[in-house]
Every structure is written in structure tokens, then in C-alpha cells.
């Protein structure tokens, strides 16, 4: 079975390297096809591994030694257990679809080949991240996906906004990675190993204060990658990248790496429930906070990005409260319907010639039936309506919050569920139904190519049926993860489900009702709360005002007064001293032998003086 492990891991690398050969050439169709095929191979290998793990248990291989210095020994080890195989399947499945989709989406882009190289490199990094059996490998993958994310957000680097967004994402992630590195150092310092099994076997013997510190530092890393408050601003700006990238990286896979980390370190977080509760609280806050921003935004992709943020908040609630398998389950279902939503949005963007303002769309159902249906499915799944995938996972998270007695969290998530339903259908209504605003711009939208739609169909199916795998999934992952049972009376449970379903349906109904009638009155946009929301709580302004400006001023100060006046001056001074002394000493070289001999004797005298002054005692 090791064979399949290596195939799953290295097929994306092979794809990336092969396509990279043609990166600088004009578009070649076969690069996209080869990349898609290789990623598909990786997906098939992942599925085989899934079956294998289900039948025979986890697979653990050590490919070779990577770093061994002194007591530090880090192998290139890979582990395929219940958690990582789920991640692998999710990642490769979505990646394959995104690759195929991209052949259509990037059709007219002159950097077609480069795009596929980056995308495959991303898949490889992500596989390293989820398959590694130690924290260092995880960190390598972590940085690899960060790098690929940077490359892909800034894919259209000639656009200033894109390169800015790429840098923002990268820098924010660096800040968070520092926290993660601190956590890793602390782990090694305390436990002397980076291997998951060793670490988790011994972590319980540590001082609780240290476990808490490790947990907090690791979560800071997760916060950056999963764009949790206050490091969330990069995710919305990352929508500058091509839409397949948003679907793959900023919805389905990379941003969930933080959740994966928390799930993977579940045994550590179980020991520190207070930190877990703080994570859950932050998650609930972000769930509500991001959903509220999504309510008023008019940018098609940003709405979905905020929705991603909000759903990540849900996952952290589950993970923080110890319901790791539920977090993983929501991660998986979310990957399916959110990437579907993004890819559908990509179709819409293409049809609208890169117009993103949903207020300028409307009535696209007529010309884009398939996309409309797929996006509606994804939206229903996102809103959490039975029997779609989102219902099962999201409802479980609400039950977890209720079960833990965290009624406040439950209430926040409950409201969040209503908001989610509302904004997702606001989007659907504004884009696909209502007035045909696009006609004012003289656009003639058309459906995407057929194979693009067919590529999306599996995701649509999964968005519908994934929820029914709940019991199988539960049985499978709890072999590794801590089981989490919900002990709520059946009556109460039924009421909860009904309430959640009720608020979701009413959110949908409200959205449909309002936008059927032409939306909200304009006067609403003058309200203070609308302004706060549409300006993202003024957080980007605050960052610019209170962090970037002072930092720029400080940098300028250091440049002008410290660098040029002290450091440069010192360096110049040294250079000048040598220059001047060289000019003076030049006269020594008169070319006259007598003079040279005199200098030589002078040297002898100096040496003799040294010999007298410095006589080593025996």
C-alpha cells in the first residue's frame, strides 16, 4: 500500500514539475490535461488508501532520514490514518475538479501553463501538510501552501491590487507562523521530539501551564492560516486571485489547515479545555462577525469569502469544544459545497466579463441554467437545509454547543445560521433572479463550456448526499479521534433541529421575499450600521491607521536617521580610512631597494619590541 501513498503524494509534484517546464511558453492545452490527469491519479490513490485504511488500519511509512543532528532526528515520515486520509480525499477530489474546471476558466489566459504548475505545487504542499507524521513536515507543508497561495493570489501580478493582496496574505500568515514556530520550539524543548505519536503520548505529563502555552501558540498559527479574527482581513482581499484558486485554496483546503491542525493536536487540546473554550468562543464570534459582513457586501466573491470565514468559525467551535470528528465532518462537507459555490461564481464572472458587483447582475437564470442550479444547491447546502450536506454537519455543531452548555455560543451560531441562509440567498436572488441589470451594460452572458459544468456535477452531488455518510464517517474517524457523543433528550434535540431549520428557512424565505420585491430601500444604506458592516467594521482602516502608518513612520525614521546617519556613515568612514591610509602609504612603494630594506628592518625592530613586551611565561 506504500505504493499508493507515494503515488498520491508525488503525482502532484510530478505534475507541477512537468508543467513548470512549459511555464514561460504560451498556452498549451496538454499541460492542463496532464496536470488534471496526474491530480486525478493522486485522487484515485487517495481513495484506494481510504478503503485500505478502513479495512486494515493506518499506514505509517518513513521514506528516509531528513534531518538528523545530535539528538534531533526528523525523518521524512508519512502517516495515512483516518484523519489524514479524509483530508487527502477531500483535497485531491476538490483539486481534481478545480484543475479540470481551470482548463475552461483559464482558457484565455496567457499564463495558462504557469497557473497549472502553481496549482499542482499547491496540491503537493497540501498533501505534505496533511500526510506528514511530524510537526516539522507539517510546517513545511504549511509554508508550502502559504507560498503557493502567495503565488496564486498574485497570479495576475501586473495588477497592483493583486500583488498587494498577495503580500498582505503572506505577511499576515508570517505573523501567525511565528506563533506556530514558537509552539513547535516549545514542543521540542519540552518533549524532545516532533513526531506526533511521541508528542501526544507524552504531552499529558507536562505542566498544564506549558501545555496551555503550546496550545495557544499553535492556535495562533491556525488563526493565521484559517483567517480567524484579528488576522482575517487577508482572506477577503485574497479574492484578487483567479476564481479556481479561491475555490481550492481559500475555501476548500488551505484555510482549513488551521482546523486540521487543531484536530490533529486534539489530544493536546483535550488536556486544556479552557483554551478549547476560548477557541470555540472566537470561532462563534467569527461565525457571526463574518456573516454580518457578508450581509451587505456587493462583491460576489467577497460574500463567499466572508461565508468561508464564518464557516471556519463553525469548525473552530466544534474543534474547540472537543468534537473533533464533527469539525472534520464540517470541514469536508464545507469543502464540497463552498468550492462548488466559488466555481459557480467563476462561471458567473466569466459570463459577466469579470464584473463582480452583484447589484449589476440579476436574471442570469435565463442564460445560465446549469450554473444557477448548481449554485443554488451549494447555497442550500450552505444554509443547512435538510437533506443537503450542510444540514448534517452544521446542525451537529449547534448541538455540540448546546450539549456543552455553552448556550451563548449556541445562540451566536443559531443567529449565524439565519444570517448565512439570508446572505447566500441574497446572492442567489441578486445574481440569478430579479431585474436583468446586466443588460444596461450591453453584456450577453453565456453558459460555461460543457465539460466545466460536468466537472462541477460531482461536487453538486456531494453537496447533496455527503451528509448521509455521517454515520459511516463517524465510525471511521473516531477510530483515531476522540469520540464525542451528544447527550440531549430526543425531544430537545428535535426542537433544536427544528429551530435551526426554521431559522435557516426563514432566512431564505426572507431573502427571497425581499429581493422578489426589488430589495431593500436605498435609505438603508445611509444607516450607520450598514456603513459599519460594508466597511468591514472599519478593521482594515484601523489596521492601516494604527499599525501600517506608525510602522511606516518608524521604518522611515530608522532608514533616515539610523541607517543612513549611523550605519552607512560608519561603513563609509571605514572605507575612507582605508582609502586615505592607502593613499598615504602609497609613497612607501618607491621601487627603491634601499627604502624597501629600510622598511624591512623597521619591521624587524617592531617584531623585536613585541618579543620583549610579550614573553610567554613557561
Amino acid at each position: 500500500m506504500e505504493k499508493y501513498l507515494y503515488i498520491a503524494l508525488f503525482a502532484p509534484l510530478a505534475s507541477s514539475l512537468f508543467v513548470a517546464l512549459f511555464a514561460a511558453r504560451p498556452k498549451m492545452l496538454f499541460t492542463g490535461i496532464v496536470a488534471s490527469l496526474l491530480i486525478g491519479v493522486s485522487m484515485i490513490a487517495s481513495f484506494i488508501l481510504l478503503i485500505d485504511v478502513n479495512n486494515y488500519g493506518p499506514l505509517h511509512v518513513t521514506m528516509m532520514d531528513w534531518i538528523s543532528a545530535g539528538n534531533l532526528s526528523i525523518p521524512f515520515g508519512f502517516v495515512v490514518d483516518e484523519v489524514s486520509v479524509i483530508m487527502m480525499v477531500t483535497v485531491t477530489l476538490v483539486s481534481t475538479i478545480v484543475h479540470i474546471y481551470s482548463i475552461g476558466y483559464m482558457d484565455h489566459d496567457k499564463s495558462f501553463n504557469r497557473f497549472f504548475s502553481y496549482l499542482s505545487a499547491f496540491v503537493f504542499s497540501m498533501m505534505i501538510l496533511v500526510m506528514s507524521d511530524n510537526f516539522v513536515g507539517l510546517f513545511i507543508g504549511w509554508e508550502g501552501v502559504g507560498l503557493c497561495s502567495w503565488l496564486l493570489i498574485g497570479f495576475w501580478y501586473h495588477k497592483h491590487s493583486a500583488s498587494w493582496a498577495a503580500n498582505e496574505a503572506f505577511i499576515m500568515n508570517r505573523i501567525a507562523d511565528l506563533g506556530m514556530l514558537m509552539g513547535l520550539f516549545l514542543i521540542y524543548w519540552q518533549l524532545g521530539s516532533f513526531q506526533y505519536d511521541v508528542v501526544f503520548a507524552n504531552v499529558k505529563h507536562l505542566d498544564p501551564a506549558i501545555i496551555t502555552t503550546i496550545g495557544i501558540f499553535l492556535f495562533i498559527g491556525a488563526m493565521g492560516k484559517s483567517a480567524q479574527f484579528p488576522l482575517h482581513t487577508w482572506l477577503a482581499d485574497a479574492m484578487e486571485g483567479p476564481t479556481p484558486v479561491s475555490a481550492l485554496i481559500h475555501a476548500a483546503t488551505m484555510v482549513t489547515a488551521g482546523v486540521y491542525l487543531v484536530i490533529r493536536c486534539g489530544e493536546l487540546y483535550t488536556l486544556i479545555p479552557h483554551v478549547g473554550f476560548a477557541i470555540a468562543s472566537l470561532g462563534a464570534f467569527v461565525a457571526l462577525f463574518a456573516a454580518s459582513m457578508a450581509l451587505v457586501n456587493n462583491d460576489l466573491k467577497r460574500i463567499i469569502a466572508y461565508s468561508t470565514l464564518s464557516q471556519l468559525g463553525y469548525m473552530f467551535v466544534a474543534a474547540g469544544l472537543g468534537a473533533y470528528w464533527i469539525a472534520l465532518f464540517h470541514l469536508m462537507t464545507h469543502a464540497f459545497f463552498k468550492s462548488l459555490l466559488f466555481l459557480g461564481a467563476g462561471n458567473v464572472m466569466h459570463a459577466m466579463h469579470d464584473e463582480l458587483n452583484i447589484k449589476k447582475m440579476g436574471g442570469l437564470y435565463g442564460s445560465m441554467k446549469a450554473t444557477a442550479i448548481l449554485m443554488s444547491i451549494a447555497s442550500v447546502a450552505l444554509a443547512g437545509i435538510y437533506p443537503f450536506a450542510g444540514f448534517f454537519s452544521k446542525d451537529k455543531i449547534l448541538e455540540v454547543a448546546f450539549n456543552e452548555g455553552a448556550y451563548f455560543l449556541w445562540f451566536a451560531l443559531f443567529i449565524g445560521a439565519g444570517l448565512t441562509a439570508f446572505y447566500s440567498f441574497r446572492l442567489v436572488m441578486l445574481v440569478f433572479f430579479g431585474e436583468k441589470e446586466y443588460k444596461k451594460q450591453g453584456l450577453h452572458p453565456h453558459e460555461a463550456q460543457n465539460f466545466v459544468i460536468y466537472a462541477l456535477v460531482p461536487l453538486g452531488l456531494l453537496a447533496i448526499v455527503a451528509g448521509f455518510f455521517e454515520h459511516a464517517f463517524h465510525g471511521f474517524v473516531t477510530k483515531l479521534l476522540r469520540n464525542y457523543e451528544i447527550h440531549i433528550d430526543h425531544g430537545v434535540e428535535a426542537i433544536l433541529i427544528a429551530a435551526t431549520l426554521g431559522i435557516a428557512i426563514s432566512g431564505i424565505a426572507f431573502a427571497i421575499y425581499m429581493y422578489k420585491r426589488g430589495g431593500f430601500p436605498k435609505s438603508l444604506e445611509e444607516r450607520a450600521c450598514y456603513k459599519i458592516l460594508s466597511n468591514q467594521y472599519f478593521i482594515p482602516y484601523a489596521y492601516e491607521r494604527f499599525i501600517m502608518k506608525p510602522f511606516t513612520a518608524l521604518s522611515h525614521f530608522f532608514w533616515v536617521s539610523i541607517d543612513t546617519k549611523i550605519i552607512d556613515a560608519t561603513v563609509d568612514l571605514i572605507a575612507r580610512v582605508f582609502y586615505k591610509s592607502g593613499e598615504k602609504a602609497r609613497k612607501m612603494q618607491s621601487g627603491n631597494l634601499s627604502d624597501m630594506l629600510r622598511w624591512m628592518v623597521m619591521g624587524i625592530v617592531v617584531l623585536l619590541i613585541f618579543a620583549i613586551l610579550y614573553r610567554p611565561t613557561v
Partner: protein
Amino acid sequence: MITLTHYLVLAGLLFAIGLVGVMKRTNLLMLFFSTEILLNAVNIGFVAVSKYYGDLSGQLFAFFIIAVAASEVAVGLGLLILWYKRNGTVDLNSLQIMKG
């Protein structure tokens, strides 16, 4: 009683005389003479040390120094003659090609 110090001081003095010659003379032939003085001063030192420590290495070093001096003179004189033939002088101040 004559001690090692006596010999070494004598060697030092002879060496200093050699140094005077090396610095003062501008005639190349005289410069060669001065270097011979330097070498001989060192030889005295070696042989004296050899005697007072009862070790033959000093004498052998002096022996090799004599050999080196002999070859130095052979080559040096050859060059000197060449220079004289070309320039008609063996004065040091005519040797200034190296001036930068």
C-alpha cells in the same frame, strides 16, 4: 667564563652591523657583502647554541646556511654581472623598474 649569552650578543652585534650595511650601502656588490655578514652572524648563533645545548642540529643548520649562501652568491653575482653589462653601473638607484 664565556657563556651562551656572550656568543648570542656577539651574533646580535654582528647582525646589527650587517643591517647597517644593508641599509646604508647602495652599491649592489657591497649589499651582497652585507648579507654575507648577516648570514655569518646567524651561523655563530647556531653553532653556539649547538654547543651549549649539546645538540648537533645547530651545526647542521649552519652547514646548510653556508650551502645556501654559496648558491646565493653564484646566482646573485651572475645577475649582477648581467646588470652591469647592461647599465654600466651596479648602483641600487638604477634599479627602479618596480616603482609603481
